[in-house]
């Protein structure tokens, strides 16, 4: 039971149900604001540059990238893992907080899930483009072919990856869409515009909100959520196995699956924090996404940051304790010191040290600083993947095969392009979809807010 005396009022401003619908739908009815057009313009520009990168890679070949025989994985896989990591928060938010019965999730889950969809879409582009011959992409599917039929290697984590990512994308989308149906119906019944009535009428699938409908809806949402929860954990574990089943020093370690899952949730929560601060500012949602909500995310980040720090220290300790000189070299001579010192220490500072500032209430209450720290987390998590991928590959067993790696303009453009794609997706979401789950906020509203007479007792 939610106790407002202990936990504070969840939704501020003494909202009624009608207020909730009105406030959340209002930005969709308003004229498209200027910032939207400006950002959309920038995002489209970035996307076009990315399209150029794609074209360049496909027309000329993978040689356009800065890869070489030794460092055969570069920005593509770094960005892939980074995006997938960000994509983990949506489901983590929705499912884990649902299971833990955290009521504050209702103001944030919709945006977090939207973020998941666009981040996973951005991530999915990298495995496709890194093949070089993208038109042969369908080879990955076990289809009946004329080569035997020769099937996939089902022992390969790269195949598991394809299965896991596509399942994750589908499951997240289905879960997200399902949650939006009652809200689309709310818009359908409220709007005066004929056009909107028609569009949201189609999107709402004819939702009426009767008792049986709600019962099935809740059961289905719980089932979909329950199935997605183990998926969240397994997807990033599988991504980590892309690395950990190899024999490359720095990758060949059993800590990878939990370390990657935690890292993914960490970066995802970081991105959620960034996004929610922007959203509440632009749409004046401070009553819905209160300082208390941001405080809760900050506390979770502090805890996860501690786990991250522990993981980093464990890696260093194991490098020494295993007695494996290649491991020790990778960690001590190629990460902590050496050529990639900057990347390593940026990672450590941004992920393990800076979020520790959240221990101070003053910092948690200062939204500007919280915002800046959330950006640092995003950067830090990018560097983590950079450190893992590049340092291990550039100097492995034979000094004669050592190589360095620098991204080319094509690789950078593809990354910027996916940023544009993500941003554009988020903008569409901000404009055409209720950014906060209306019916879910309503369903916790009375319990968490209007107990005023109770609190006054």
């Amino acid at each position, binding site marked *: 039971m939610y106790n407002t005396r202990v936990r504070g009022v969840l939704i501020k401003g003494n909202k009624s149900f*009608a207020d909730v619908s009105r406030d959340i739908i209002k930005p969709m009815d308003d004229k498209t604001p200027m910032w939207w057009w400006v950002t959309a313009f920038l995002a489209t520009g970035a996307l076009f540059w990315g399209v150029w990168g794609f074209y360049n890679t496909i027309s000329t070949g993978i040689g356009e990238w800065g890869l070489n025989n030794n460092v055969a994985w570069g920005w593509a896989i770094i960005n892939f893992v980074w995006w997938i990591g960000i994509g983990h928060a949506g489901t983590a938010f929705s499912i884990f907080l649902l299971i833990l019965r955290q009521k504050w999730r209702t103001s944030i889950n919709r945006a977090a899930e939207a973020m998941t969809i666009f981040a996973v879409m951005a991530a999915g582009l990298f495995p496709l483009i890194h093949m070089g011959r993208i038109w042969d992409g369908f080879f990955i599917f076990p289809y009946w072919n004329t080569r035997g039929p020769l099937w996939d290697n089902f022992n390969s984590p790269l195949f598991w990856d394809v*299965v896991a990512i596509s399942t994750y994308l589908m499951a997240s989308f289905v879960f997200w869409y399902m949650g939006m149906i009652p809200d689309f119906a*709310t818009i359908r*019944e409220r709007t005066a515009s004929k056009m909107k009535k028609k569009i949201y*009428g189609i999107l709402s699938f*004819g939702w*009426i909100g009767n*008792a049986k409908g709600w019962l099935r809806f809740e059961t*289905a949402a719980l089932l979909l959520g329950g199935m997605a929860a183990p998926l969240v954990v397994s997807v990033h574990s599988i991504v980590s196995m892309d690395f950990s089943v190899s024999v490359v020093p720095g990758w060949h370690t059993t800590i990878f699956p939990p370390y990657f899952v935690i890292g993914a949730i960490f970066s995802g929560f970081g991105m959620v924090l960034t996004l929610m601060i922007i959203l509440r500012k632009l749409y004046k949602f401070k009553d819905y996404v209160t300082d208390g909500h941001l405080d809760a995310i900050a506390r979770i980040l502090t805890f996860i940051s501690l786990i991250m720090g522990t993981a980093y220290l464990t890696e260093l300790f194991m490098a020494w304790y295993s007695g494996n000189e290649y491991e020790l070299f990778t960690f001590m001579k190629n990460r902590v010191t050496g050529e990639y010192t900057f990347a390593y220490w940026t990672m450590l500072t941004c992920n393990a040290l800076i979020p520790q500032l959240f221990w101070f209430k003053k910092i948690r209450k200062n939204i500007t600083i919280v915002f800046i720290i959330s950006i640092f987390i995003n950067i830090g998590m990018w560097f983590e993947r950079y450190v893992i991928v590049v340092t291990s590959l550039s100097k492995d067993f034979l000094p004669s095969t050592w190589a360095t790696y620098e991204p080319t303009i094509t690789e950078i453009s593809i990354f910027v392009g996916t940023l544009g794609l993500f941003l554009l997706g988020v903008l569409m979401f901000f404009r055409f979809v209720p950014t906060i789950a209306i019916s879910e906020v309503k*369903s916790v509203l009375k319990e968490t807010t209007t107990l005023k007479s109770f609190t006054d007792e």
Partner: protein
Amino acid sequence: MNNKNIIGIYDDQDVLLNALDELMENGVKIKDVYSPIPLHGVFEKLHLKTRLPYATFIYGAIGTITVFMFLYWTSVVSYPLKFGGKPLNTLSFIIIMFVLTIFVGTFFTFLTYFIREKMYPGKQVELPIPETTNDKFAVIIQRDVTMTEDDVKKVNSLLQKTGAVEIKETE
């Protein structure tokens, strides 16, 4: 079919739940309740049940078995090919089976929901009280042909007594 209904409109979830109790104690048959949020009290009081979890379980089980059969057939029967000296029928199948079980379960649960609810994109619906998607709660009581004027009056007064803000009759 007789579609005459008496509709009691409430504007608070707890008032509605108490009203349901009172109505049912007085022998009024509740046809349906429309609300902007899911109300567990309503499910209990109307004795509503869903078999969706069983369906999901069956989908998942079928998914697991089918995926295993496919993996076994491709890797052991159709084209046995050794990778790194590992057995043909390997433990790593579990990972694919696990993920695809979730895939099958999720996808078909989603479909089943819409099939059972008879919902599809573009379905036209006419809500008895459109505000039930916003902030009102509506109790639908069927007005049977056997109901006399007195019965209707009784229902109306009960609705009034239990705090309905508005009472409507539909043809």
